[in-house]
């Protein structure tokens, strides 16, 4: 199950970053990247499609990465959230980790190997979470049926 393609959304207002990350993720055939240059557009996608990881830049015009990930968490709590930021200050990092349940706070410039390993774990976690929730609900269903049979 965890070997199915893993869908990663990247949002950064910089085209050079999104294009680069799309290429990087495509070198690893397991990832299926989708990129946006605006948080508002990315949020529409989060509402429509199931994702395994969401990578967001911090400072963007309009909605920033922090608010974007907060809303994404409401919509798809199972998708792992990563903040990839050039603005390195630990206070905002701690706030992000605590308030958005961040999977990882990564600073630019990043190391490709490290990022790929991170995304591997992040997406695996999301898929496992979803499997768990599927299993739990089918168990609930089974339990309901058994109860019905007993009564």
């Amino acid at each position, binding site marked *: 199950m965890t070997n199915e393609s893993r869908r990663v959304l990247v949002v950064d207002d910089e085209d050079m970053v999104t294009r680069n990350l799309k290429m*990087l993720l495509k070198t690893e055939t397991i990832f299926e990247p989708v990129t946006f240059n605006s948080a508002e557009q990315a949020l529409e996608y989060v509402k429509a499609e199931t994702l395994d990881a969401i990578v967001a830049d911090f400072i963007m015009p309009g909605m920033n990465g922090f608010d974007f990930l907060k809303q994404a968490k409401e919509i798809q709590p199972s998708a792992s959230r990563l903040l990839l930021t050039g*603005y*390195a200050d630990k206070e905002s990092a701690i706030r992000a980790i605590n308030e958005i349940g961040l999977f990882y706070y990564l600073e630019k410039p*990043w190391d490709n*190997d490290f990022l790929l390993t991170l995304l591997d774990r992040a997406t695996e976690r999301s898929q496992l979470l979803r499997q768990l929730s599927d299993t739990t609900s089918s168990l609930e269903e089974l339990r309901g049926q058994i109860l019905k049979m007993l009564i």
Partner: protein
Amino acid sequence: MADDPLFEQIPEVMSRLGTDLSIRAQNSLSIERYGNAEGVPCYKAHFGRDERCPGCMVKQVLAMGRTDRWNMADNRSERPTYYEVTIAPILDDEGRVKELIEIIRDDTLKFGVEQHLIQTSEGLEAEVADRSRELEELTTRTDGLREQLSKLREDQTAMVQTEKMASLGRLAAGLTHEIHTPLGALISNLDILNRIISKSDPPDETLKELLELQQLAADRIHKIVRSLRNFAHLDRAEEEPYDLHEGIEASLALLAHQVKGRIEVVREFGDLPAVRCKADAINQVFMNLLQNAVHAIEESGEIRVTTRVEGDQAVLEFRDSGKGIAKEHVEKLFEPGFTTKPRGVGTGLGLAIAYTTMTDHKGEIEVESAPGRGTLFTLRLPIAGGFV
């Protein structure tokens, strides 16, 4: 008296008196002033008195047979008048006084001027004394002001320096953020290219070489941006008790390959308690100072690190036997961007970072150096901390 031309022509108010002081004769000036007063005693004629004037010297003149002169005041009117009275005896053949010549000179004007001069000079003296006092006060005040001025100048210099550092910090913060994004993409792209090329068979050697060079350039940019970020203290760690000796040892360990066999490191460590500080930042100060010391020693030499407690401060000295710093460079030493090292070796930020780190910790950094005599950096850190 027409029979005595001298008596008439001397331009003074003159009378001839009998020894009983009655007026026997007057010259015309006397008549002009007092009217005809023949037979009237002088004190009555001249001063309207019924008896001799107080201070009259006629007795002495009669007794001694010698001329006498004195001053008298006439207080009858509101504004007193002053006279100089001269009585000259005229002797008979046996040397007895037979008659007196009296000259009365109105001295009111002269006296007034004298009085005025006396008063004025007294006033002047008082004024001079006042002025001297004022001058003294002014001098004291000027000294105080001068002192304040020099203190203000020092404060101003310090404030300008602090403000300069703060605005550079803000600039660095903004700059690093702006650079991190394209730098991130650049480094990542190079890495992807490397992956693709290493998979191609046979690998294109020219491309590989070019990529290596690109990688070196990107690494250099990354290094500079990291220094800038440290300078701006973007990654704030917590302040906690820290063993400074541990930090010095760690920095020395990192420099071991540059020191080995060439430089002798002497440790004179005192009994330092743990000091509250941001260990990462302080370690960077040690690293910068030690790195500079290593660079300053051209062939062989010594680096001496001394630590001790002074009051509530930890004092650390980093002394090297290197080539020293020119006087004109010492002044600019803590300015960001100032370096004497060749391109690529120094960013010109090391000592600026050290300066900011020390002032942020409410500490101090001082330098003492002369060409050919080595360099001494002294750090002072409050043991109790106090990072701002």
